[in-house]
């Protein structure tokens, strides 16, 4: 709406506070103590336990979380950016506690969901990309710059003013991912990003993941996608049953499925 239109001309009117915030954000990218740590994490929905006493340090650049339906892997993913805080234990991202510093954690950890339809929140592509940046109160010219860069980088330029509704499923997922990456998080968690995609779009997303400079954590059933990852965790009934390089963990997972 007005947002989108105001974005384009972008007369720079620097606000010192906002510029400071923007710089802080940029610094957030710098690879400081890049690590997510779970300490004795237990989580339950009401009296239904989902995760049991997990303690882990996630430091690798590419990490896969494998597990069947109901294994707790989606809950696990949501713990990593503070969308869910554990019923017991704690999760820390680069030293920030998800319970105490939820907002700061969400700035560091981007999250991409399975279904792009419920992630795209604004009617047109350009406005949607600007959404998270506006929520973060970045200055207008900074928003315009980042949105334009993202449109170009993810091949969405020709859709700029188009309703998201008219895009294909793959393009929508690309937009959803772009909407997260435009925030320049230090870590990105993907919850089954390829499940709803056809083969061609699946390849596109995998390609995109491969090129990301961030730490990437992917919850998936897509075993093929994770074979060149640095580490794979297998969850079953809320417990880690295998942990290691995909060459070891994936066969272990497949064997358990059998």
């Amino acid at each position: 709406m007005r947002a989108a239109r105001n974005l384009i001309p972008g007369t720079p009117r620097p606000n010192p506070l906002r510029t400071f915030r923007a710089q802080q954000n940029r610094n957030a990218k710098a690879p400081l103590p890049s690590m997510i740590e779970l300490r004795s994490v237990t989580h339950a929905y009401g009296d239904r336990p989902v995760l049991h006493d997990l303690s882990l340090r996630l430091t690798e650049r590419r990490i896969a979380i494998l597990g069947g339906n109901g294994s707790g892997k989606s809950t696990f993913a949501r713990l990593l950016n503070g969308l869910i805080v554990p019923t017991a234990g704690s999760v820390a991202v680069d030293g920030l506690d998800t319970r105490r510093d939820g907002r700061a954690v969400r700035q560091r950890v981007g999250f991409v969901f399975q279904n792009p339809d419920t992630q795209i929140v604004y009617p047109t592509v350009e406005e949607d990309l600007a959404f998270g940046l506006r929520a973060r109160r970045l200055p207008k010219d900074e928003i315009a710059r980042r949105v334009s860069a993202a449109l170009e980088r993810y091949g969405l330029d020709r859709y700029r003013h188009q309703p998201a509704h008219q895009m294909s499923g793959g393009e929508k997922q690309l937009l959803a991912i772009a909407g997260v990456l435009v925030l320049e998080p230090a870590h990105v968690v993907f919850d089954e990003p390829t499940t709803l995609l056809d083969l061609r779009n699946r390849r596109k997303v995998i390609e995109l993941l491969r090129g990301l400079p961030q730490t990437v954590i992917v919850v998936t059933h897509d075993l093929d996608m994770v074979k060149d990852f640095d580490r794979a965790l297998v969850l079953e009934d809320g417990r880690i049953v295998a942990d290691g390089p995909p060459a070891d963990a994936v066969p272990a997972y497949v064997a358990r499925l059998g």
Partner: protein
Amino acid sequence: MLGLYLHRDSAIHRLPAGVKMGGLLLLTLVVLALPGGWGALAAGLAGAGVLVAAKLPAGRVLRELRSPVVMLTLLFGFQALLAGTGWEDTAIAVARFAALILLATLVTLTTRVMDMVELFERLFARLRPLGVNPAKMALMLALTIRFIPLLGDQVREVRMAQRARGVERNIAALFVPLLVKILTMADDLTAALEARGYDPADPGPEPGPHR
């Protein structure tokens, strides 16, 4: 989202939405205040003038007007037949509103949906002292526009599924799955908004939602 907007290169189209809405409000008050048929005549003339100035096709405008005019005419005929006396007053009332509906339709046809939405957002900002949060209203309007086509698809999809099962006329069977779908969508959408840093406690930048 084009809506009912009909693009033409005209001065009327270029007028800000606020001016057009303000003008409509003013004219409505004048028409309702003027005695007898004068109001209807004034509004009718104004409408014809705007129609020409906006370079709109009369046929299309009349089509937009068809359903209220047909209804008004039917009611009027009904009234005249039954009552016999005093039908002149009814005729004047009908003519007045027909003219006002023409004017209102012209505003809609010459104003982009987004311009109107922006106007509403500016009005919400004025209502801040009454506890209205303009940033939240703006976000909800945007979300609604985004999700209307999606829910249109859902309604069609669920109806198709019901038809396949032969329960087409059972509207209850339409609504339960639809509601369950909406409520799960609400969960996902809430998580997605918050994952992207949306914080409802944030009062939003002053003065408008997007500045």
